């Protein structure tokens, strides 16, 4: 195996068994090389700054940190390093906040090693953001307010008009659309509109 070509990965995870499992699991994946591990956020950050790995696999809740938000921010600020979050936190509002900080992937702890390896390969190939399939439960998780937005989108309305219609701000509509893209696994607004039309939202009422 050509080590110089391999993607370098740093794992920061406080749960020892999970950490070991990840380290051995990823070590067996071709093209991936685990260059370091840490069990708390401060030493992990130092290590990341020294090693400059391609990818940091980061747990969201670690001992010795001021808060997940500031921690993720600090990791995302390391030049040349992409951050994938590996966490049990499955609530969308929090995931959205984390993604807005600049992480490229968000995986739930229920994922297996091969999926993690696959994600690492994908983000290195430039695809982002990638989030766990489980979170993209498709149409079942589309809330009532999102359905309304989809309906208006499929009428061909712009963010500004949708915001006016719904008596909210364009920023909120944009945020809802971004969340929809994530939930539905779509890439951009055009795809979202196409999806809304195809799914029949334009025919509602």
């Amino acid at each position, binding site marked *: 195996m050509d080590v110089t070509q391999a993607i370098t990965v740093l794992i920061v995870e406080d749960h020892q068994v999970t950490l070991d499992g990840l380290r051995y699991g990823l070590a067996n994946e071709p093209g991936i090389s685990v260059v370091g591990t840490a069990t708390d956020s401060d030493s992990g950050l130092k290590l990341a700054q020294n090693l400059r790995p391609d990818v940091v696999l980061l747990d969201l809740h670690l001992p010795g940190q001021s808060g*997940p*938000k500031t921690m993720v921010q600090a990791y995302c600020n390391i030049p040349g390093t992409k951050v994938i979050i590996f966490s049990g936190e499955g*609530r*969308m509002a*929090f995931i959205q906040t984390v993604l807005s900080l600049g992480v490229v992937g968000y995986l739930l702890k229920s994922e297996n090693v091969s999926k993690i390896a696959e994600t690492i390969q994908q983000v290195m190939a430039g695809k982002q953001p990638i989030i766990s399939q489980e979170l993209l439960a498709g149409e079942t998780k589309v809330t009532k*307010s999102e359905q309304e937005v989809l309906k208006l989108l499929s009428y061909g309305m712009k963010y500004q008009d949708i915001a006016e219609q719904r008596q*909210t*701000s364009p920023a*909120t509509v944009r945020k809802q659309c971004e969340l929809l893209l994530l939930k539905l696994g779509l890439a951009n607004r055009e795809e979202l509109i196409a999806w809304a039309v195809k799914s029949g939202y334009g025919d509602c009422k």
Partner: protein
Amino acid sequence: MSLNPLLRWRSLWLSSLAKQFAELINGFDIEPPPAKSEVSHKYLAVFIDSIYEQLYSLAHEFNRHLQTTHLRISVIAPETTKETDKPGQPAPESYLRCRASTAAWSLSVRACKGLVEFFLVPVRDLIVLSKAEQDSKLLCKLYLSQDGMFWLKDGLPLSDLEIEVLVKDLFKQLVLAPMRTQESPELENFSNLKGEALTHAIRQLILDKQNLVQKIITQQEEMQKGISRELHDAVISDVLMVKRAFSGDKRLSDEELLEVLDQITHKLRDICHELAPRDLIDWGLPTVIDDMLQRSAERSGCDCSFDHQGELPDLPQAVQLHIYRIVQEALNNIEKYSQASLVRVSLTCSNNELKLTIEDNGQGFEPDKLELRKSRQGGQGMGNLAQRAELIRCFYPARVKVESKQQEGTQVTLEITLQGATANF
């Protein structure tokens, strides 16, 4: 809030009466204080007059409904009085006054130079004004804003409607005054003596503190009971089920087991979420409010959305917690009672003000009937909102407003002034 026709007619009649009084007052030879312009003094007179009018109509209404002799209320029209000389006080001032009295208590409104004060005093003390209108009997204070356009309470301007609500509340306190615990008579007699007044104040403070401690402990106990109940009902039974699945003969399949475990995780997380807003410290208000709303949407299927504008300043942890609880409480009320299909939460921050609104399009309620519902259903939601706002006032001037119309929905508004105002008047 809608007036019934009779009331509307009466208020029309009263306002014409009020106009006459206004002319009367303007006719009074009030020596305008040198520092203040004539305009604001006139404004003061009109303002007192409107308060008088509201008191009058309330008293009228009240007397009509309650034909009891001991609670009959009379209202005296605004008049100007000169304060008698008090030892150790600067020059006496002229005050504009009006009063509403029951047999034993009097709600006395006193106004001068951009300041209106409301006192609740025993009628027998009224003869000696300096004794009657002491700070300890002060219910509420309004200041005139710098430009003379608004009345301020706790540093925030009041709308006409709010003044009406305020006066109603003060009136209620007047009516309920006989029910208040009687102050000990000996102490009252000495209240003009400094040393004794001090002792009394200290005693009162100690008593208040004891009550507060009692209240806090009771609340803690209640909370612990709640946790234990929820753990027992929601979690233990599920865990036992998993246990049975491993020991009994009816084995669960892996999928079923995973589902049960998921459920347990979910319930535990809900309990944690309810209790310790760890998330709030970690993620900040906007994210947590967004999350609360998304969960509420999942439960109720409502069209919920969250608007967040402006950068949230660095608020003290306690203030964030109270805001969080206010949202939680309001959303709870919406889910429980409103049958709304649309919920909007918005959080707007400018450099000087934070405004939070929680709106729904549900069935709403009549504010008057809220008291009734409170006792019937054992809820205390709206009262809690006011208490939270009160606690925020330890840091910033803050105000919470609950407006509701039947069949049109409810709007809860919290406003906090962040700078340029002292925390407490």
